[in-house]
């Protein structure tokens, strides 16, 4: 039950990243996605990877909360495709995680598929560097969480690396583009 709720929170966070353009909305999206995924990872891979991912996602959310377009920027005009993406990606991930694939770890499968799919779609569809960096942080966390799907793969080192990358992308400040 906890895993299912956590997976739903992950989808909510990913949806916020898809639907928001402002720094508050993006930061809340990263925070929710990380919170949900960390709980799922805790259940499947133990506390150390979960805490590492939570730390990385928390730092990314903190960095995004203080830099980027002001406000929430939730569902600006023309957001219908993004809403469709949020709902459609969630349903597709749910179908693959519970209908196509089998075995334990259904919540982790759903969370990883949702995060990777929606974050990559967001990176491809926006011109905003801040939005892309936010989505990249989430992709890093999801890649590390996916290591938990393999019982033989160590989850700690990918989690530590993902935390470092997520925190780095959250606090990265871009200068003015320059001609070479």
């Amino acid at each position, binding site marked *: 039950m906890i895993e299912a709720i956590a997976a739903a929170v992950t989808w909510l966070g990913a949806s916020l990243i898809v639907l928001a353009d402002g720094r508050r909305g993006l930061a809340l999206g990263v925070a929710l996605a990380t919170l949900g995924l960390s709980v799922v990872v805790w259940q499947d891979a133990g506390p150390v990877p979960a805490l590492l991912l939570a730390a990385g996602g928390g730092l990314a959310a903190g960095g995004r909360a203080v830099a980027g377009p002001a406000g929430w920027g939730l569902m600006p005009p023309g957001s219908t495709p993004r809403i469709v993406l949020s709902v459609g990606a969630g349903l597709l991930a749910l179908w693959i995680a519970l209908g196509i694939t*089998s*075995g334990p770890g259904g919540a982790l499968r759903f969370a990883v598929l949702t995060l990777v799919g929606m974050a990559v779609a967001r*990176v491809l569809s926006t011109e905003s560097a801040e939005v892309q960096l936010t989505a990249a942080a989430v*992709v890093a966390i999801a*890649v590390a969480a*996916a290591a938990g799907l393999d019982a033989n793969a160590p989850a700690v080192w*990918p989690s530590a690396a993902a935390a470092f990358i997520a925190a780095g992308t959250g606090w990265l400040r871009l*200068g003015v583009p*320059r001609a*070479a």
Partner: protein
Amino acid sequence: MLPEAEELLVLVAAGLVFAFVFAPTAIPRRSLVIQGGAGVVAGAAIAVVPTFDLALLVLLGLGTVDAAMGGLRTFAVRMRAPVLAVGIFALALVFLRVEGPDVLARFAAVGLVAGLAAAVGLLPYIHPFEADEATPASPLVWTVFVGPLLAAVVVARAQSFIPVDAGEAFAAMLIGIGLLNMAWGAIAAWLTASKEAAWRYSFLADWGLVLCGFGLTLLDGRRAAMLILFSIVTCRLPLYLVAREPVEKRSPTEGPLNLLVAAALAGSAPFVGFAARVLLLRGATQLFWPLALVIAIAMLLWLPGSFRLGRSMGLPRGRQALGVAIVLAVNVVAGLYPLPLLTVAGL
């Protein structure tokens, strides 16, 4: 670390040193060291890390750093390909790790090839070109410095964790994408209006040969892929850098040197590209002879583009002339006696 990766790492590092010493003054040395060096270091990290998950995170980190360093293309444009590659690789890993129908493993095989194409910048995920962009800020970092090591790692990992049925799909995808890049890259290098774009398409054509070599799943194929990667790093890259001299300082010429350069780029004997092509055709003949016929026809497409690129070199002088001479000599030696290269790579 894989023996192939060790050799490729030495080669790309040597390619970077060559670029630093012999590239025209128009290419900023500081950017070359920083962005090229970041590519070499990331490539080494990709080859060294114990799990593929860590390799993906290295790739994502490099993509972010490379995009943040700037250039003529915007951050958003530069960021897309690496993140797309990591996302596709991640989905492929998920499909390989979960229980489910056999078709999931085939989707994973497709994802591994698609991710590799996206990371290197091959069709159908070609990185956008900006003809005026400085070389270190261009997609060349991915094509030349990171790509060879990533390809070696992906192919080696795929052999260990893809089931046999999906392995056939993986090989077929490599050959299919390879043929697409060979044909498209060679024809575009011949017909495109821009000289810069022609050079970059020629890298794609060579990468098509590499993918075909890896896809043959025979020793000859892997040997051919290794030699083509050697040719990309030690022949096409340095010649491209020399050809980057500003237009006003260089006019197309048709001297003996240009003919030699064209022959080296086209993979004629006695250059290393010829040995690679012979190995590739021999492997393809063993596997399925009509494939060898298609590859042989595609190889002919290198000729007109290579003559064009050879002419665009003009007549190098001074340090650049010495660099071109070294490049041609190294490629002749490797073409006449490639065995040491292959032995060091464990092939």
